[in-house]
């Protein structure tokens, strides 16, 4: 088993280094890419903390929607197929509710706060 710092802690450290020390020191042409890299480190930090539980929850939600258990990747593939060609509006409405929750969890990793907006 690895010693500390754990993945989340290291990613936090890397993000801080990139944003605080590297960014001011690079040529302007590189700044945007360094910012993006720092942001990716923060995304990965959140993913390492939140990802496993989010995947388990998604798996649970999809099992409820599809009516059977399965590996997450398979469930998602099945749901995609059924939604693309389906005619069952009730199923689609239920899927919409589930997907809102799934994407909300994805956003907690990828971009916290993006789900504050619920308009069109």
């Amino acid at each position: 088993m690895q010693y500390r710092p754990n993945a989340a802690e290291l990613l936090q450290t890397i993000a801080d280094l990139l944003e605080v020390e590297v960014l001011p020191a690079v040529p302007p042409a590189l700044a945007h890419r360094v910012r993006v890299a720092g942001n990716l480190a923060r995304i990965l930090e959140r993913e390492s903390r939140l990802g496993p539980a989010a995947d388990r929850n998604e798996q649970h939600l999809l099992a409820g929607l599809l009516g059977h258990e399965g590996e997450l990747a398979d469930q998602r593939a099945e749901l995609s197929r059924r939604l693309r060609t389906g005619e069952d509006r009730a199923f689609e409405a239920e899927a919409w509710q589930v997907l809102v929750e799934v994407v909300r969890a994805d956003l907690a990793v990828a971009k916290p706060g993006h789900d504050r907006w619920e308009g069109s």
Partner: protein
Amino acid sequence: MTTAAARPDAGTGPSAGPDAGPGPGVGPAPDGSPDLAVGLADFLGTTWDRRVTIANLSSSSAGARRSNLLFDAQLDRPLDTGTGATTLHLVATILPTSEIQLNPITAEADVRGLAEQAGVPVPHIHAVCLDDSYVGGPFFVSDRVDGESVPRRVLRLVHEHGLGERVAAQMGEALGRLHAVDPALAPAELIDPGPGNPAELALAAADEAAAELLAPRPAISLGLRWLERHLPSPPPRRTIVHYDVRNGNLIVGPDGLRAVLDWEGARRQGDPMEDVAWPSLRMWRFREDEREIGGFAGREPYVAGYEAAGGTFDAERFHWWKVLGTLRWGLGLAGQAAAHLDGRFVNVVMAASGRRVPELEWDLLMLLRPDSMGGD
């Protein structure tokens, strides 16, 4: 527009802006060197039959694929047409030689001229050059229009001066004037998607792009099914479409909208509601989520401006194109991640695009909310 475009700042996919594209340093990086000044003086001198001196040459690329050189041209006597000035404030927009253009540069210049004649605010183009030898690539020279173009600075300016409704109205009016042009007058070389129903073509392209996804995305499948079920009939009138009007392709000053830029993706014919919907997407509001049009204002002044200029606003069709545009953008981001992973375009920004897909899925799901046809 094609989806899943590998080029990050084409008008057809996730393009130049604060959060998209590979950023500065990719592509040609002119530095205002003496060779460029000589090339410009040479070309303009020949074109205008004048003695031309180039001054104050500087580069303003902001990470775009094309390079923009700002400069002053001092003439020994004024042009026959124009203001009678002997110093012109100009921009040379240089295209990379290595890339296939969406439209030939001459067609792009011609459609801008057509739009200009129709009253759309667009910087006047003085000349187009296809010869690489002057500045290293094909280029055109246009009048420099001062003002802000970086989206968040535009929004700051707009809020400082209380211009939100005016700019939204001006955007609507600009599109209305463009769409009033008889498409038969469009340059012959402008990309023509053909006579098929634009919505059907766009959905087919989106389905193709979705088939390339590296992993299934149920939200995208739900969106595609919705688009199919609600497919609009062909538009009552096809028009020239700009294809990328948005906050990010505008120049705005204290007096309002001064120019609509980036005509490289224009099409000879399309559904005008596609053009009208694009600027209203959430990603072009730059966090001013409650102001539907570019973060400037809600849709009322925008629609009013569009209709005053002769356009016909169709709310249902508009909503369909909002859904399509959101989906297309998400697929484009997914395509950028794929291009990074398979080696076509290895770049951290392209890679990061894959992690932005959930943002567009959220926006898509909100648009598909059963009660969501009103403006927000």
